[in-house]
């Protein structure tokens, strides 16, 4: 039975259902309960955005607060994953990868290959990305391309409450290390989500909207931006097909290529900064594999090559919006040799 719940609730429900199902699942991170050692409530926060609220009492001993010490607890989650637990660690902001990246990309990502296929590291690192909350340069970045670059990591970027729940359950059950990127402006977004547990497989893109005139590939929160643009475009008779890759590693290249072969036009919408991001990666893929199908140059809609600014006047310019997507679509649709 589906009902309408928020992205936040969908994530919390996924965690609770997996913790119920599998005793080896534990949750750890800064203030994941909140209030450890403090005089007041001992489940004060449930994570900085409340995703893990309530789990502390429901699963005694399995929700662990940590010091603000990302190298130690992200590393501990990785170590515990090699020793039979399925930890879900919360790296509060994706920007904080800077203080614990070694444990992620030199340790977790490498174990299986480096140890000749003998290691299993089923760890999930949930982390918050994206601009829009006036959080400025160190708390707003869309850094999933950096993780996508690293062989050995899987990278998930859910675009809706439905995606969030199914992909998080899949992440927890997956035996490889998963970086699970939640957009900070989406926690209150609501949508239909089944009550029962379900998984969405990795590497299978969702076709969010059908259309024959142009393919829009959008990542994470950009899916909803693309949908808004598609509505406007439909009014002028342009039908866009929107593809949500859901996971940037593995990437469902087949669905993207099939769509471009049909539409002959590609716009990629990526909130990340423009160098070596998903837009360039997917564009290169299509240029190489579907060159003959292209009827126009590929357009990329991304953030500018700058840090994320603080002032709302600037941040609103920074984030790709529906108008920019619509303009890009018009460019490719109207393009003539």
């Amino acid at each position, binding site marked *: 039975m589906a009902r309408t719940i928020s992205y936040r609730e969908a994530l919390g429900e996924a965690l609770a259902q997996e913790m119920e199902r599998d005793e080896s699942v*534990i949750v750890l991170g800064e203030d994941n309960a909140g209030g450890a050692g403090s005089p007041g409530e001992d489940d004060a926060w449930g994570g900085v955005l409340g995703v893990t609220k309530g789990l502390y009492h429901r699963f005694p*001993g*399995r929700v*662990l607060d*940590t*010091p603000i*010490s990302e*190298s*130690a*607890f*992200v*590393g*501990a*989650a*990785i*170590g*515990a*994953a*090699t*020793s*039979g*637990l399925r*930890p879900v660690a919360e790296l509060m902001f994706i920007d904080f990868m800077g203080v614990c990246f*070694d*444990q992620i990309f*030199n*340790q977790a990502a*490498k*174990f*299986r*290959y*480096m*140890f*000749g*296929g*003998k*290691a*299993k590291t089923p760890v999930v690192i949930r982390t918050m990305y994206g601009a829009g909350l006036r959080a400025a340069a160190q708390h707003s970045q869309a850094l999933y391309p950096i993780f996508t670059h690293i*062989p*050995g990591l*899987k990278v998930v970027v859910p675009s809706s409450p439905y995606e969030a729940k199914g992909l998080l359950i899949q992440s927890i059950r*997956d*035996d*490889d290390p998963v970086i699970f990127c939640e957009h900070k402006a989406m926690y209150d977004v609501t949508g239909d989500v089944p009550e029962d547990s379900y998984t969405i497989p990795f*590497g299978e893109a969702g076709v969010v909207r059908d259309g024959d005139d142009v393919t829009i590939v959008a990542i994470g929160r950009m899916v909803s931006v693309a949908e808004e643009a598609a509505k406007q475009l439909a009014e002028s008779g342009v039908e866009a097909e929107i593809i949500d890759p859901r996971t940037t590693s*593995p990437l469902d290249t087949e669905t993207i290529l099939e769509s471009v072969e049909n539409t002959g036009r590609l716009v990629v919408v990526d909130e990340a900064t423009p160098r070596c991001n998903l837009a360039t990666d997917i564009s290169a893929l299509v240029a190489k594999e579907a060159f003959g199908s292209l009827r126009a140059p590929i357009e990329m809609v991304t953030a500018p090559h700058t840090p994320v600014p603080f002032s709302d006047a600037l941040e609103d310019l920074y984030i790709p919006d529906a108008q920019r997507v619509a303009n890009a679509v018009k460019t490719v649709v109207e393009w003539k040799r």
Partner: protein
Amino acid sequence: MTDTLSTAVSHELDGNALLDAYRTMRTIRAFEERLHDEFATGEIPGFVHLYAGEEASATGVCLHLDDRDAIASTHRGHGHCIAKGVDVKAMMAEIYGRRTGSCHGKGGSMHIADLSKGMLGANGIVGGGPPLICGTALAAKQKGTGGVGVAFFGDGASNQGTTLEAMNLASVWQLPAIFVAENNGYAEATSSTWSVAADNIADRAAGFGMPGVIVDGFDFFAVHEAAAEAIQRAREGGGPTLIEVKFTRYFGHFEGDQQTYRAGEVAYARENLDCLKRFRARVTETGQVEAARLDAVDAQVADLIDAAVEEAKAAPKPTAADLETDVYIEY
């Protein structure tokens, strides 16, 4: 009398256990000395960091461990691997980059691991291991196995944030973790007396609310005794301990290091402090083990290392088909 104290004499090893300890130390020494020679022939690829001189540390600690216990190691990891029971021939093959190696030739000297033995890997990143050990210790605690995690790290890693963070977390969570700081005097070419601002690495323990002790790293019995206390304490829920093991490495930071930064301490240590010499002298003069049995171990170990090198050299290298396998379990 408390339980901790009543185990006093049980720390003392019987003849067979002494022979096992000797075999482990001798195997490490022979493995490393042979690698030193083989490296000079140019046949061994990459970077090799040798553990010779430090055998008493890995052996004295790991003799207390079993398969429920995990260790994390360093770039100087061959000794820890051998002491934790990783197959010596597979290790040698790995160092030669062969498909028959511990990691099928994909890891090399700095990444030998065997998770089935609780050997979480040598580690190419200085300070990479301690956070991981918090995790294995957490898993042991959550599952109630009685297992412990041991992070071996060097004087260089003692200055890394990861190590300090891990000690803090281990103490906050009261984890069954043991931090073994192997202070061999140099981080690469830099003296630990310069790079470690605290006077002893062990002194940092106080800052993390755990006991910190210094032991003579050339003395197997000193390490074995301190490790016994720390590991038992951890198994019984007493929390983490920092043990600083002081000694000298016999070779350079890596093979090929001219070691112009050193004085004559290696010759002195080999002559006067060597862990194998001291061990042999003590167990024979007390009559616990006959010299002939130790000689037999020496011969067996020499044969094992000969065979390991011979087999490694003859073994096939990985092929193109292996290049892209084992990145993921499923992708």
